[in-house]
């Protein structure tokens, strides 16, 4: 009964989204306000039914309703409750479902927080989102119905893939999808600006918070995914340049460019065409990400579900959304105009250059990800493009980006003077260079290659910190009052930028130190053996058997010590899940601010002495990578809470009424 209610709710949501995607758009074009006002109600109604359907799906998972195919193939009575809930979005059907659910959520949010917007704009924005939602809902209903029943009803489900039975998996997809789908708001704003021809600073101020919020979710989603891969896959890596990771990185790169470009459009009324194009690209890449991951075209962890029919459907949808919006862009963009002017040396220039660099970086990732697919599709041979490619193009592109990031935050709008910039930034530059070159030697590195790479990493991080500090001192120089008062005077959007940029610095420090100082050893250990790595010693004390809810585990006991002082015990596991029969490595990590000690178990060795193959790592500063991402997210949230958005919104309403 419940699955049928879910099914009907989905159909009703699809019908409402169809109305949301047509009448308000036509109403806006013809000036029929009765049609335009439909947009809010239909968006809220569609969200209500989407939420109902989502609830029904989760309920089916909670009560183990194995008459639903989706539940039977992805859940099990022995699966813990939290993973049964997470299993609702662990499958292909469920993940598309949560995608559309989130689109409903974002449209509903737009319909509520848009009281100050002109009716025409709301109608267009929600209309565009309705069209996208209709496409995805049809995809869901026609090719991947999450409520499909099976008969006879199996007594037991197949269980969720063990890799996904993890707290990271409960959070990673919703966060990532909130980001992906959130960019649909920026996309809808861009398309409605093209349709209506209204593209000014006010427009930018409206779409900015939405874009920033989506970006925050995406950052967090990528962070959780990376962290999950780090501790769950047992390989100790935090980024593999796997096509699926790239699929999430691409919208992030272009989304970052979009966020900054929107700032310029709002403050200086320029970059308009570019901003619109970036908004279209960001959402297109989000859709492409969904397609790459969900169509099964990739050799990857995520290609659990493979069905070419679905791939075709998404491809057509992708073609319609990207092709349609780019066509509209080609026709309407010239009408938008360019806005204010600026000199070559100015904050605008730095931001524009960084926009280009981020876009090019995204392009190179796209090329590396899709090139093997094209070759394969054209039967020109099978190749794989590995991490060396991405590292070789990414690092050289990020060096100027980070340099300009420092300059841009300090440079003046419109026109900055080089001598003035030099005078303000020379101390920052001096400190950066001296410390960055000295640091690798202080840390005991002498080989030229290693010193060069470390110095480069440190220089980039220090440059961000010192230039941000310079900018900060400049800002408070002419503010009256005590130091605390000076700080309090700075708007939150400034603190947001400050925190986010520092986040990048923290991230770079993490990457640099991990790359430069990580140590790894694969060894064979018999109980009683010790192995040392990075100054820490791991003593293997043996294994015991342990039974989990839906698996059997061999649990190893290791004593971690440094300088003969015991620190703590670590318990990595090798699990065997009942339903899958596949082994799973569960690493044990001693995590700290200055580094992680990581141990994972390979396999038992039949030598009669209960030996195992064991992998141990020392990962200095690896947590800084994630701390950096969290700082970036916090920066985004701070900027979002700036009172300017609220105050100006009220003023806009006042203007419109007057």
């Amino acid at each position: 009964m419940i699955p049928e209610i879910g099914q009907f709710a989905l159909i009703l949501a699809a019908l409402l989204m169809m109305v949301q995607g047509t009448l308000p758009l036509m109403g806006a074009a013809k000036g029929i306000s009765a049609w335009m006002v439909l947009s809010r109600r239909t968006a809220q109604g569609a969200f209500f039914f989407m939420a109902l359907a989502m609830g029904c799906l989760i309920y089916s998972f909670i009560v183990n309703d194995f008459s639903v195919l989706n539940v039977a193939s992805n859940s099990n009575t022995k699966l813990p409750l939290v993973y049964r809930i997470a299993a609702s979005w662990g499958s292909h059907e469920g993940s598309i479902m949560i995608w559309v659910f989130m689109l409903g959520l974002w449209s509903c949010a737009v319909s509520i927080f848009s009281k100050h917007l002109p009716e025409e704009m709301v109608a267009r924005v929600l209309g565009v989102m309705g069209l996208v939602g209709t496409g995805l809902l049809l995809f869901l209903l026609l090719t991947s119905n999450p409520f499909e029943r099976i008969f006879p009803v199996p007594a037991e489900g197949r269980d969720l893939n063990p890799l996904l039975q993890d707290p990271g998996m409960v959070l990673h997809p919703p966060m990532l999808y909130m980001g992906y789908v959130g960019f649909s708001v920026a996309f809808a704003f861009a398309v409605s600006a093209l349709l209506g021809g209204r593209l000014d600073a006010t427009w930018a101020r409206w779409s900015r918070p939405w874009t920033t919020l989506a970006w925050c979710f995406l950052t967090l989603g990528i962070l959780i995914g990376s962290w999950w891969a780090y501790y769950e896959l047992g390989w100790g890596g935090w980024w593999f340049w796997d096509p699926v990771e790239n699929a999430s990185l691409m919208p992030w790169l272009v989304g970052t460019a979009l966020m900054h470009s929107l700032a310029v459009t709002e403050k200086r009324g320029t970059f308009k065409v570019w901003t619109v194009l970036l908004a279209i690209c960001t959402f297109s890449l989000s859709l492409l990400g969904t397609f790459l991951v969900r169509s099964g075209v990739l050799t990857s962890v995520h290609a659990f579900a493979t069905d070419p029919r679905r791939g075709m459907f998404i491809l057509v949808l992708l073609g319609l959304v990207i092709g349609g919006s780019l066509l509209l862009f080609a026709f309407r963009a010239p009408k938008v105009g360019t806005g204010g002017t600026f000199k070559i040396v100015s904050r605008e220039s730095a931001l524009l250059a960084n926009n280009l660099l981020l876009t090019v970086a995204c392009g190179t990732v796209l090329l590396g990800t899709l090139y093997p697919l094209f070759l394969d599709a054209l039967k020109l041979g099978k190749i794989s493009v590995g991490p060396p490619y991405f590292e070789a193009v990414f690092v050289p592109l990020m060096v100027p980006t980070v340099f300009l990031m420092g300059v841009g935050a300090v440079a003046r709008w419109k026109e900055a003077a080089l001598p003035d910039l030099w005078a303000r930034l020379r101390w920052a530059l001096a400190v950066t260079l001296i410390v960055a070159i000295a640091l690798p030697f202080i840390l005991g590195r002498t080989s030229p290659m290693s010193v060069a790479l470390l110095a480069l990493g440190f220089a980039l991080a220090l440059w961000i910190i010192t230039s941000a500090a310079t900018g900060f001192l400049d800002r408070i120089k002419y503010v009256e009052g005590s130091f605390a008062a000076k700080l309090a005077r700075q708007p939150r959007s400034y603190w947001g930028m400050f925190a986010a940029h520092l986040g990048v610095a923290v991230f770079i420090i993490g990457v640099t130190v991990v790359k430069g100082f990580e140590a790894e050893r694969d060894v064979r250990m018999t109980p009683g053996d010790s192995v040392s790595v990075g100054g820490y010693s791991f003593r293997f004390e043996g294994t015991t058997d342990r039974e989990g809810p839906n698996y059997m585990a061999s649990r190893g006991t290791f004593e971690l010590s440094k300088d003969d002082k015991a620190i703590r015990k670590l318990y990595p596991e090798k699990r065997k899940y009942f339903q899958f029969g596949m082994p799973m490595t569960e690493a044990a990590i001693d995590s700290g601010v200055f580094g992680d000690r990581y141990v994972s178990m390979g396999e038992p060795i039949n030598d009669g002495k209960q030996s195992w193959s064991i992998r141990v790592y020392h990962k200095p500063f690896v947590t800084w990578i994630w701390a950096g991402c969290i700082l970036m997210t916090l920066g985004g949230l701070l900027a979002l809470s700036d009172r300017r958005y609220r105050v100006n919104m009220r003023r806009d309403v006042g203007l419109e009424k007057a």
Partner: protein
Amino acid sequence: MSAGQETLQKTAVTPAGGLKPRHKRLLWIIFGLVFIAAIVALILNAFGSSITYFYSPTEVVQDKVPHGRAFRIGGMVEGGSLVRDANGLTVHFRVTDTAKAVPVVYTGILPDLFSENKGVVAQGKLDEHGVFQATQVLAKHDENYVAPEAAAAMDAAHKARVAETVKE
């Protein structure tokens, strides 16, 4: 990309500095071309050194593979071929596409899903004795899922065999 240039050009049209707009635009175009050339050089250089080609065991046996350069092979781990060194982490096994098999040596910890009669992809170099020295072994993530490369190798071998039967 094109819109980026468009923006560049539009900003360049604005009269500024001591340069004439026409000269300024030329300067931007040259700058743009240099930038694009640099990016292309960067990509080609990176591609040249880091693309790994994929071959099936049959192609390895027929010596169609590069020497002294890393590549990937894929197929199934032949049943009964897995041997572990008595003391150490080195394993020996054979990768087969059901037609031909290639001996592989790997030192290190194998992925969770590595086992006999299951799909596998290995990356490494062929040594002078015809043994594939693997630096990396990848196995699938789900017991029902076979890596496309491994599936393709077995499929090709199957087709070749059918073709041969028809000829006979």
